[in-house]
């Protein structure tokens, strides 16, 4: 059997020839993709609108929402304690990364990250395993602490890696950094954010 015969043989057995799966509706798929992306980024309730497609995404969202509520309780507790004790904080703010979700993110935009109550520009001072410590350069929203510790332990293979000395813009809600909430930031991006938030 030579190459051509083998190729013909393989082609005649192509499962796509006999498969009865309906062809995808490209426009609907594009629309669903663009909507889903906006929804997962901001974690707002309208994600329900896409219920017809991608059930797995919704499970991810539900899990993330559960995490947020849980972490919200914990972080809320910490904040209250801080308020009762010393007004500014010796203890660093601790954040975790939301599991599930994104692969690679677009350049961060002020409007996209504005929905998060915690938002800062920070420089990494140490990376110990999954624990990344930031010195906060500017608080754009929320905050008050000088350092932030981020637990980036996650089973996602294609995650953002934090490098010592690198500068990042990090957003969080209820102690959890959402998908695409932590981004390496150039001076230009930092400038744009400082301008947008008047800091």
């Amino acid at each position: 059997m030579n190459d051509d015969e083998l190729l013909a043989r393989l082609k005649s057995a192509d499962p796509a020839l006999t498969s009865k799966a309906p062809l995808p509706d490209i426009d609907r798929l594009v629309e669903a993709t663009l909507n889903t992306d906006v929804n997962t980024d901001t974690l707002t309730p309208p994600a329900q609108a896409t219920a017809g497609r991608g059930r797995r995404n919704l499970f991810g969202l539900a899990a993330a929402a559960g995490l947020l509520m849980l972490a919200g309780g914990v972080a809320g507790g910490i904040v209250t304690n801080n308020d009762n004790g010393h007004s500014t904080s010796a203890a660093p703010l601790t954040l975790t990364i939301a599991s599930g979700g994104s692969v690679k993110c677009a350049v961060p935009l002020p409007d996209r990250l504005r929905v998060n109550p915690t938002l800062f520009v920070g420089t990494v001072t140490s990376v110990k395993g999954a624990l990344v410590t930031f010195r906060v350069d500017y608080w754009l929203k929320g905050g008050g602490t000088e350092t932030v510790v981020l637990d980036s332990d996650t089973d996602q293979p294609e995650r953002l890696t934090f490098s010592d000395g690198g500068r990042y813009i990090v957003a969080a809600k209820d102690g959890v950094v959402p998908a695409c909430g932590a981004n390496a930031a150039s001076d230009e991006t930092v400038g744009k954010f400082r301008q947008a938030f008047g800091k």
Partner: protein
Amino acid sequence: MTEEETRRKQRARFERLAQVVVDPLHRYLRRRTSADRVEDILSETMLVLWRRIDNVPGLGTGSMPDPDPEPDPEPGDVLPWCYGVARGCLANARRADGRRLRLVERLVRTQQQLPAGPADHSDLHAALDALGALDREVVQLWAWEGLAPRQIAEATGLTSNAVSVRLHRAKKKLAAQLGRKNAELPGHKRDEGRSGQ
């Protein structure tokens, strides 16, 4: 360029990319998983493509002064990379579902083949199953997706050289196995090539 304008360009670029790649990606997945999984994994793949729209090779990027409107992407330029993304999403889904899914996939494939009419491809599928997973993928990308070794390299992350070697060996293995099967069919000369015995 304002942020809004960048966003608008990205969306337009994604829409043009979708027109070119959705059908081939759908076929790619139909060849490799059960019909009810295809839609989910395709959605996942499109999400990744949208998030990485500036990284898709063969597609303009926001940093260059692009002509407006930008030309449609060439399938041969963008598809291999997109197949690579679909391959990753499929692998993620398989990891998540574990062996159960792989078993189901194999059963579905056998069942689909049986009532398919005059052509019975069970021996070919058996021969494909006997290859290692990466060798099988390389052969399928060559035969079904019609990719050249250089493009297969882009889809799989191998070097072109490694692809050529794997492809050559896998084709030889397949041909040998199929040849053996044919030789065993009744009516064929069974002593062909063994005349000295």
